[in-house]
């Protein structure tokens, strides 16, 4: 569903992780919206209401919106974008590109075709592009990408990311961002923004989504009652959806529903197939089977039931919290980065929770 009134507005979305980046994400959109205001546009910024309260590692989104004062912001309570809205997509943790969003959507789901993607990463842009093509594309993308090692400029990563964004984006000028910093009493951060602006090297991108485009789902006929079989069919369709659009297409009409909000859990031994949680993970455990003494502590202490009884990790559910590696009495489990485990690449731009906790304010 596309609504032209909303698409005409200028949107920026920040993808980041709860608690780790909450302060940075809100800081970034505040400055961006203020820059919009400095440029004379009606501007808003907000955290996606659905992500409140933020949770450790759980992906969350912040928005800055600039544009037509006659149209109010619509996404205050929405799960996902109405159509293709985003002119700029900023990703504070590159490992988020390896997984879906917490809404089981894709990072570029709601992006306009010419969107700018800004990624905080130490990885080469071409590697980022590879993974975007492989995992995050729902539509054709004919925009630009800029990668930046934000923390080499400033521990407060919002500022370098803003500089990089301004370089690649014609919607907000660097001058307006500097004006916003003045207005917010953050003028001393101007050099950071300017330096990042100078260094950033956006590249033009053209990726075709190809067969990743929207697929019509097969769903059972409406029945009088919402029985287990019907529920499972809808559940499987929603779980198998690759984009937000597909997932919403799997949501049932009211005629199918049983009275009183009935759902069905897995049968014992099964798992909640409707909701995988790999999106929380930027580290993953690796088990040294030679050392394992089969004590089962890692299994019982896993909050997500992701560590199997035989110490095999279910990557659909592992959130990378690291408890298993801490409780292992023989240190048989080590935590490695997602990029390293998946692609053999080292991401140096990872914000650790220790650092985040120092900065994280209510």
């Amino acid at each position, binding site marked *: 569903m596309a609504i032209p009134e909303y698409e005409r507005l200028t949107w920026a979305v920040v993808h980041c992780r*709860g*608690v780790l980046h909450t302060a940075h994400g809100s800081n970034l959109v505040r400055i961006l919206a203020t820059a919009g205001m400095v440029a004379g546009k009606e501007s808003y910024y907000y955290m996606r209401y659905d992500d409140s*309260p*933020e*949770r*450790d*590692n*759980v992906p969350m989104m912040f928005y800055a919106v600039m544009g037509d004062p006659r149209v109010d912001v619509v996404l205050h309570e929405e799960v996902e974008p109405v159509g293709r809205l985003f002119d700029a997509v900023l990703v504070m943790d590159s490992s988020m590109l390896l997984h879906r969003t*917490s809404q089981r959507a894709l990072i570029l789901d709601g992006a306009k075709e010419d969107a700018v993607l800004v990624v905080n990463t130490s990885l080469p842009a071409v590697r980022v592009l590879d993974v975007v093509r492989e995992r995050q594309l729902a539509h054709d993308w004919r925009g630009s990408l800029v990668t930046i090692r934000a923390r080499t400029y400033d521990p407060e990563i919002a500022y370098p990311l803003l500089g990089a964004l301004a370089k690649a984006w014609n919607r907000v000028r660097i001058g307006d961002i500097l004006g916003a910093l003045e207005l917010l009493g953050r003028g001393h951060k101007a050099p950071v923004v300017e330096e990042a602006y100078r260094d950033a090297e956006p590249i033009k991108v053209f990726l075709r989504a190809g067969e990743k485009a929207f697929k019509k789902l097969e769903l059972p006929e409406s029945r009088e009652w919402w029985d287990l079989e019907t*529920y499972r069919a*809808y*559940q499987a369709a*929603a*779980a198998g959806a690759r984009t937000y659009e597909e997932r919403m297409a*799997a*949501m049932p009409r009211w005629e199918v529903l049983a009275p009183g909000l009935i*759902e069905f*859990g*897995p*049968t*014992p*031994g*099964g*798992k*909640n*197939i*409707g*909701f*995988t*949680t790999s999106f*929380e993970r930027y580290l993953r455990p690796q088990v040294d089977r030679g050392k394992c003494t*089969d*004590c*089962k*502590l890692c*299994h*019982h*202490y*896993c*909050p*997500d*039931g*992701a560590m*199997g*009884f035989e110490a095999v990790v*279910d990557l*659909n*559910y592992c*959130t990378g*919290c*690291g*408890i298993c*590696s*801490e*409780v292992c009495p023989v240190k048989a489990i080590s*935590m490695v980065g997602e990029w390293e485990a998946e692609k053999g690449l080292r991401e140096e731009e990872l914000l650790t*929770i220790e650092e985040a*906790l120092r900065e*994280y304010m*209510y």
Partner: protein
Amino acid sequence: MSLQPIRTPKELGSIDYYTSGHRTCAGCGPAIGYRLATKAAGPKTVLLGPTGCMYVANGHQFLTSPYAVPWFHTQLGGGGAAGIGTAAAFRALISKGKRKREEINVLVYGGDGGFADIGYAGLSMALTYDYQRLLYILYDNESYANTGIQASSTTPWGATTTFTPTGKVKRIGNERMKKNVALTIAAHPGVRYVATSALYPPMDLVNKVRKALNSGGPAFIQILTPCPKGWFFDPKHTITLSRLAVETGAWALWEYEEGTFSLTYKPPKRQGLREYMRMQGRFTHLSDEDIERLDRVIEEQWKLWLESDRQRRIILPWTPPPTPL
């Protein structure tokens, strides 16, 4: 049918009833407690979830559910009533021949908001009845975590929360002492089994859940479940903090079985409170002297815990809060 005690983690088995697939924080302590408790209770169980993290974070999406046994939401203050309503329904239907005879566990897993504050009266009422296999578990993460960390009556002295922030005038943060809910529950004569538990030692909770369900009456367990977000720590440390809470004596593990009190864990040498508290961001504003004063309060409490253990009956560990200098 009596549930057998678990001696080693291996015996507990692999089948989960609170399964994978929930949007809790990485390293969520209450989620670990939920897994262990439901594993201990087994398949013949109905779960009830008062509002809280274990409601909101476990749901959120339609067409998804992590519960492999029947589960129903109850209002934040409705935990006690929901448990008793469910247990009463089974007893009535079975005794009137409307349902086949079977022992069904009813397990209500509520937070400190749900059981120590708004639902406290309902919990208290429920525990004056004699329903069997009715177990209330308070997962105590020491705040209203799901609304963004607000103080509850089990938030410890000195913790900063969004309702008790430290500031220029109020230095300490939360100035109330943590309410010992389990002790007040022990004052209900009909309750067969009351215990405090933690995620450490490993099978402590599991065995207490089984004892509680076997006890032949309503039962109550309060588990201390570290909350990475609310306590401000690296999610990997959830179990480490559980261990430290127990070893430092900040959290005493005991059970009260039909009138007999016993400590289930006695710290060999009570130490390390500073390490425990310094690992948590919510206490960063406290000075070393503050922590020492708190340590002295805990020391006083432990004299009474040990005396209670010796006499096999409860002596209320009344202690004044550490007065700020």
